[in-house]
């Protein structure tokens, strides 16, 4: 059930109606049923897998919580992590690992048996909810969270449908307390949620899907396209991924808000980041902060005597995990490694950069920093979007070698894309720098605010792409 489909909005409207008509005590049970239906509609065959993982993690949490024996607690933690990672590795990385292992054996002429590949499809949302369950058992082990005793509340923490398939990767500490409150109908939640959904639809249907049509055309014919055209398409891809994923997040957060829940923000004007460390504090925050809390910090703190080398090792491991989290492919590993190398460079040069920043006007330094960060992100996304490393190399070569005219399809294509990107970025610029004295979408004047959303909806109807295109992060 795609968030931009009519079926989803019918499901949402019906669920909201039933949710608020039911007595407050029955609402969480209803949300579990609605979430199971939502998941079953998308992929019914893995409903038992998710149910099994819920039960196992629930029991592991209780096991850790009610055991004072240090070794037993650790045993429960390792068992929980082993089960969660085992499921993730089996479904997502098994074939990739076997393929590479067979190739490795092939170098020594040792591959004689047929490789044990498995013919399976990836359970939807697996990478997202597995990270939630690992976070949960780790928090209970660390003592920062008490194990949830109510299995229904724990189930809803995993299953809550607005975040089930593409996140945000929610923390139990933030979500579970929300399940203990009595949610009353609040008109404000519905209007705020609706506005957030409208903004998400604009980003997805007008910005991301418009760019996608152009970008796909260029990429499938890149051998015949000029270098400038490919470069332009690559730059637009950065806006596309941002609009696609943050648009999804807006719809998820808006939907949750309508039911009275606050989910974690996933983006904070990432394309205005001043360096790569800053970028990762603003991009897919629920994933980057998860990796920071459960991988990076434990490594650097455990190996703090290693000084900088401990930090560098932590960065390399963390970003390889972030890279490969996106999929079982070497281009994602390289994408992650590039981010780590860029941040290591930033650490090593920070004193020199501080000196430079004092010699030139601050606004020039900041704007140049934003530009260089954007260009680096765009470059790394060339690797991210390519199926193989050789495809990425070929594409980069074509930017410098290919001759010809700049291709922009029709003038309307360019107009819709540039207008959409401009509106999206102007809102981000205003949020970041508070430059406009007259906010449009967040104006305190009711009439201005409603008119701005009316304009947004009309623009979606005029310029939106309604072909049911899937979200990019759905496949991760």
């Amino acid at each position, binding site marked *: 059930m795609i968030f931009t489909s009519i079926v989803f909005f019918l499901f949402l409207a019906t669920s909201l109606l039933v949710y608020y008509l039911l007595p407050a005590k029955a609402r969480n049970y209803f949300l579990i049923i609605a979430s199971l239906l939502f998941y079953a509609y998308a992929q019914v065959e893995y409903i038992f897998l998710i149910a099994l993982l819920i039960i196992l993690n629930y029991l592991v949490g209780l096991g850790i919580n009610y055991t004072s024996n240090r070794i037993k607690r650790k045993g429960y933690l390792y068992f929980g992590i082993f089960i969660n990672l085992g499921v993730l590795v089996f479904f997502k990385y098994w074939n990739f690992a076997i393929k590479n292992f067979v190739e490795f054996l092939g170098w020594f002429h040792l591959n004689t048996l047929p490789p044990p590949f498995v013919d399976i499809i990836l359970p939807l949302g697996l990478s997202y909810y597995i990270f939630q369950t690992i976070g949960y058992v780790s928090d209970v082990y*660390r*003592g*920062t969270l008490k194990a949830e005793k109510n299995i229904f509340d724990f189930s809803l923490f995993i299953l809550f449908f607005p975040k089930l398939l593409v996140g945000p990767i929610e923390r139990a500490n933030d979500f579970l307390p929300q399940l203990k409150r009595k949610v009353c109908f609040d008109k404000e939640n519905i209007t705020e949620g609706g506005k957030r959904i409208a903004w998400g639809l604009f980003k997805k249907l007008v910005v991301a899907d418009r760019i996608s049509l152009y970008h796909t055309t260029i990429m499938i014919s890149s051998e015949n396209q000029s270098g400038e055209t490919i470069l332009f398409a690559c730059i637009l891809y950065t806006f596309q991924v941002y609009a696609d994923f943050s648009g999804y997040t807006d719809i998820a957060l808006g939907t949750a808000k309508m039911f009275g829940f606050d989910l974690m923000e996933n983006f904070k004007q990432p394309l205005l980041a001043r360096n790569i*460390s800053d970028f990762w504090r603003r991009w897919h925050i629920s994933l980057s902060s998860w990796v920071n*809390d459960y991988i*990076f*910090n*434990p490594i*650097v*703190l*455990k190996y*703090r*005597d290693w*000084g*900088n080398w*401990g*930090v560098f090792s*932590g960065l390399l491991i963390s970003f390889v995990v972030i890279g490969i989290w996106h999929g079982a492919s070497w281009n994602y590993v390289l994408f992650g490694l590039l981010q780590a190398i860029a941040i290591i460079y930033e*650490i090593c040069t920070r004193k020199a950069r501080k000196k430079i920043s004092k010699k030139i006007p601050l606004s020039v330094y900041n704007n140049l920093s934003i530009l260089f960060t954007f260009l680096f992100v765009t470059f790394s996304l060339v690797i991210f979007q390519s199926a193989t490393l050789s495809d990425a190399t070929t594409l980069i070569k074509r930017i410098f070698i290919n001759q010809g005219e700049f291709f922009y399809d029709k003038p309307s294509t360019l107009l819709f894309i540039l207008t959409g990107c401009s509106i999206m970025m102007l809102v981000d610029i205003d949020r970041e720098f508070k430059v406009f004295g007259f906010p449009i979408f967040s104006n305190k004047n009711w009439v201005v605010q409603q008119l701005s959303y009316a304009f947004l909806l009309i623009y979606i109807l005029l310029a939106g792409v309604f072909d049911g295109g899937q979200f990019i992060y759905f496949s991760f």
Partner: protein
Amino acid sequence: MSQDEILKELNKIFIEVFEDESIVLTENTTTSDIDAWDSLNHIQMITAVEKKYKIRFKLNDLLNFKNVGDLCRGIQAKIF
């Protein structure tokens, strides 16, 4: 040693590690309150604290420090 005394000594360590004379710590100070408090400076600060008080924190303690107050209490628990 009282919490206030530890806080004063920590303030000196923070000024030295973060190279910022303007730092004034309170128990509620967190990473978001100090611009230069990144992962590298955090490690340097922790090792400086451990050296100063001749203590060694457990990994779990370090992961659970949410603000300067938690760090003060962690030091106090170790030196008594």
